[in-house]
């Protein structure tokens, strides 16, 4: 049976060493670069006409923009629109990486926790910095829920701090786990088809896992979009905490 984990292996394409650190250009780097180029090319091409009445490509670009802008505006109010470029970049990057990963034989960048953790850490640090920059010490109100009696306040604050610190963990694990699990499942069902075909009379059963793999592929495309959406949505919600603490 083909190894379902094999698809997540990193191979250096251009080995680079800086002060003993391995910073090789890997297949993961290649697909990150590919998705960035793809996104850039898509927006350059689609917005080239800059028509008042948009064409097909331009409509697609505008719908994407409206979708994310609506999400940011709904979650954080108009104050959050200053962070729209960042949120939009995060959404497009994750979405494109997820979708590229759905093409057979392609590498899924977001199935590595180091990538999702870096993205989550970026959001987490930005929330802390923006929170203190905008509200000063008032940002700490985030840890003090309203209407809590004084005697148990230290306990509640401690719990709120743990809850706050757990955000980047859940933020990164969710995206990574979804992509990893989905791709392993697909590979396993694909492997079943190959095994059954090689198993003599049992080959008549091989369409069953094949049908399952097809159904799972459809589900995975949905998951690829939903997880990009959820990641972006949570980014907006955390940003809202930074902009308006004490809610």
């Amino acid at each position, binding site marked *: 049976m083909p190894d379902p984990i094999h698809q997540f292996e990193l191979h250096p394409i251009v080995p680079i060493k800086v002060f003993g650190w391995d910073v090789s250009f890997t297949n993961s780097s290649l697909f990150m670069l590919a998705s960035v180029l793809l996104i850039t090319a898509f927006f350059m091409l689609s917005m080239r006409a800059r028509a008042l009445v948009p064409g097909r490509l331009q409509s697609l670009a505008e719908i994407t923009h409206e979708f994310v802008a609506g999400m940011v505006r709904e979650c954080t109010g108009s104050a959050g629109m200053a962070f729209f470029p960042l949120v939009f970049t995060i959404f497009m990057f994750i979405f494109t990486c997820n979708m590229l990963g759905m093409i057979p034989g392609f590498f899924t960048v977001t199935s590595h926790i180091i990538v999702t953790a870096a993205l989550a850490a970026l959001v987490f640090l930005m929330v802390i910095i923006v929170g203190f920059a905008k509200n000063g010490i008032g940002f700490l109100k985030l840890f003090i829920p309203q209407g809590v009696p004084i005697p148990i306040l230290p306990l509640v604050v401690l719990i709120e701090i*743990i*809850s706050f610190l757990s*955000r980047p*963990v*859940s933020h990164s694990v*969710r995206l990574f786990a979804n992509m990893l699990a989905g791709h392993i499942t697909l590979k396993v069902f694909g492997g079943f088809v190959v095994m059954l075909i090689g198993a003599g009379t049992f080959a008549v059963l091989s369409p069953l896992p094949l049908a399952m793999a097809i159904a799972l592929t459809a589900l995975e495309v949905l998951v690829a979009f*939903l997880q990009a959406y959820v990641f972006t949505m949570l980014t907006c*919600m955390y940003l809202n905490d930074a902009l308006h603490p004490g809610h």
Partner: protein
Amino acid sequence: MPGPANDRGPGERQMTERERSAFAGRISDLGDRLDKIKAQRRAEEGADHDAALRGRGMAYGMRMAAELVAAVLVGGGIGYALDRWLGSTPWLFLLFFVLGFVAGVINVVKAYERLQMDIAARTGGRLGHPAPDEED
């Protein structure tokens, strides 16, 4: 105004019995066909809606699980680190593990409240809205 209805001339607008029954037959035939198409479309929409709901449900489920587990891990991690630092093994680990669990439950409750608000906004407040009484 040209048309088959006018060919009979004035005063003869009434359909004959045969024409009337044929016309009624055609009408009911058309109605049947429309009903069939409508039912098919509704079933297709229902299936699409079902799949979307299932995907959304799975996303929310994974989200709740991640919220709970992450807080327990972080709480336990803080406790473990403090124990290593202060040499108080295992007490702080136990305390922070429990606190982490509490934080996880709070995370899930918060996430669920948010989900309810989303659903309420989408369905016009029919679901998940804290109703003044249970009767309506």
